[in-house]
């Protein structure tokens, strides 16, 4: 590896350092949050899951209805 190549690599790494640093900080925060979430206790009951699914069904229907009306705007 000649000096030109080494200089090019050093320049590249120097240019990338701010991005790397910012990415590492973000990643560290995400992983920290992930582990905090994992340590949080709490199991969802079947009833809770069923309630969420029922609410989802209503929201899904409303979304379909709204989009059908929106799509109709384009054809009118």
């Amino acid at each position: 590896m000649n000096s030109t190549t080494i200089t090019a690599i050093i320049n590249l790494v120097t240019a990338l350092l701010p991005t790397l640093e910012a990415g590492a900080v973000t990643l560290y925060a995400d992983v920290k949050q992930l582990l905090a979430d994992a340590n949080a206790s709490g199991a969802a009951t079947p009833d809770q899951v069923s309630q969420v699914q029922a609410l989802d069904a209503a929201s899904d229907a409303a979304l379909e209805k709204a989009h059908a009306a929106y799509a109709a705007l384009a054809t009118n």
Partner: protein
Amino acid sequence: MKLFKLVAGLAMACLLLSVAGCTTTGLVSAVGQATGVTIPSSKALAVADSLRTAEDLATTYLSGCVAAKSHTGACAYGDTVYNDAKAANIARDNLLAFISQHGDVPLGAGGVYDAATTALSTLQSVLTQTGVYKPAANS
């Protein structure tokens, strides 16, 4: 400190390998799998709830455009919003099905947790463009 080294190492590996789709979410998942992290079902259920809230915002946006009889300008995102909301619904349903059958969600278990959080992020992103979703200042 060990965790930070692991994360930094994964980030560097990701950079050097230039792996397509090597995102923060993917790396967090990789760390989770490596350390056997399991997401409590209550937390996963909260993600599903957030997805429904985002879906309701999508519906609000579409309904607003219908009321204004507008398909252009600020209302030009309608189909994108709808498609992202549909994709989020699939991710949410898969996550809920997993919780129903297994309870807590180990990271890497079919990618159901990653898929749901990614879909939520995607939907929130397009809703932010429409102006109906305003991210919290600290997020």
